[in-house]
């Protein structure tokens, strides 16, 4: 299977701190990859570089064959990489439905101009309804996003990034700030939705149970480097990983 996303020799420093040191990854289409590592290990930095929020100091990122290293987040989203946020980024005064319609509408409107990348189909309204069903948000339809409980905000945030009909979805700690019993519910919903849309997924996660249950492949970050890469079973057993990632950090939330 060919790589849909590929990072080659990425470097990024914040002053003295090295957030990425020679990151090389190839992600194959329709795979689900978990990114683990203690805080400041470079997971989110990696996400931010892929989505163009940060520019790498060196190295290049390729999506579906073309280089996207120096594109703006908007352009990258248009090409078909969308992300969700650790702290949900919603339109708080708009209703849940309107949030999704805005997201879907952007694609629908844009489809006329750039058919490449995101495959836009269906009217925004239809897509929004589809998402409401798929994420079980129908009950909140007309409620302003600002008034939703955290778990629902997380789901809406992810639903919006999926409403853009991406080919790659990046989830930044999808279950952080959510009570333990909600977590699996959220992840199941997301997994189902993702399967339905055939999206390649990368997600940052601290909860190793979640990782081992949903990821087909795990990348362990430490000091801006990838110290382990492989199937969950093997990676989570890896000595360095146990020492640097799980050892101190297992089940640590913030």
């Amino acid at each position, binding site marked *: 299977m060919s790589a849909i996303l590929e990072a080659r020799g990425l470097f990024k420093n914040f002053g003295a701190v090295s957030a990425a040191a020679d990151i090389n990854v190839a992600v194959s289409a329709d795979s689900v990859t978990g990114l683990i590592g203690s805080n400041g290990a470079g997971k989110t930095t990696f996400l931010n570089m892929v989505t163009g929020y940060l520019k790498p100091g060196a190295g290049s990122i390729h999506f579906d064959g073309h280089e996207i290293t120096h594109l703006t987040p908007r352009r990258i989203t248009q090409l078909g990489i969308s992300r969700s*946020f650790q702290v949900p980024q919603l339109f708080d005064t708009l209703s849940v439905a309107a949030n999704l319609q805005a997201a879907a509408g952007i694609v629908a409107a844009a489809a006329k101009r750039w058919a490449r990348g995101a495959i836009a189909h269906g009217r925004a309204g239809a897509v929004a309804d589809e998402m409401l069903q798929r994420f079980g948000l129908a009950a909140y339809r007309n409620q302003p996003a600002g008034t939703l409980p955290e778990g629902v905000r997380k789901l809406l945030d992810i639903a919006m990034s999926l409403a853009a009909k991406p080919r790659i979805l990046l989830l*930044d700690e999808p279950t952080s700030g959510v009570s333990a019993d909600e977590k699996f519910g959220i992840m199941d919903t997301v997994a189902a939705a993702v399967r339905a849309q055939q999206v390649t997924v990368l997600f940052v996660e601290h909860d190793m149970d979640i990782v081992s249950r949903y990821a087909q492949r795990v990348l362990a970050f430490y000091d801006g480097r990838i110290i382990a890469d492989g199937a969950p079973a093997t990676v989570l057993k890896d000595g360095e990983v146990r020492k640097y990632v799980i050892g101190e950090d297992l089940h640590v939330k913030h």
Partner: protein
Amino acid sequence: MSDLLAVVVDGIIYSSWLFIMAAGLTLIYGVMKILNIAHGSLYALGAYLSATLVGLWVAGGHAPYGSYAMLALSALLVGVVMGPLLERGLLRLMYGRDEVVLLLVTYAVFLILEDAIKLVWGVDSLYVAQPYDLPGNFTIGDLSYPVYNLVLIGTAVVAGLALAWALNRTHHGKMLLAVIHDSEVSRALGINVGRVYLVTFTIGTMLAAVGGAVTAPTLAVSAGMGVEVIVLSFAVVVIGGLGSLGGAALGALIVGLVRSAAVHYWPTVELFSVYSVMAMVLIARPKGLFTPPEARRI
């Protein structure tokens, strides 16, 4: 050459006047996120009161130099009366509202004070030149300047240094900076934000009044004098970067020098020199010269 010297001297005199106004404005904005249009009327209030008090003092035949005390007194009075009155009586009911709404509240206050001043002092202009004439003149090159201008410059410098010291060296000042940085967190840390607001607004009001008081002797205190000042000090504050004291100082200096250069070399553009500077600075630096760093959002 002496011409250039004149440009600088005139510029600095004008800048000092601007700075006294801008300092209060930027302080209030920094802490309370209120762009206070009423600042102009408080300036006028300071001018009217000092004109009255100095007038009485002189009429009373007291020691002429006492008139300076009158200037200080009136600024103090306006500050401690109007500051708390407006903050406690009105603004406090508005906190949490949109910045624009707060701005309009101060605009309403401005309208009300304009008429209030008219009702108290009438529409005839007042003037009290004694403090201005008293110290005589000094000459630079072949130009003579009233020594009073040095008082103006001095007031500005002292006010600036005092504020800077109070902000960075005193406990209250540090609390203030904390609130400027993030009022939510400060609340969480147990800082009495309400009190900080009261103090800030009172100091800001006092600065406006000081501006009025030191200006009163140099001109005719007349209706509508606050209007012209306010947009000018807005420009200075925005140029310098909202909430930044150093920015206000630099902004005042730039505006002052540009204006006096325009007057000397190209009088016809004096009218919009200030706004052109403001536009150019904002185009070059969208948030003004000195701006606080922004936190990463994701």
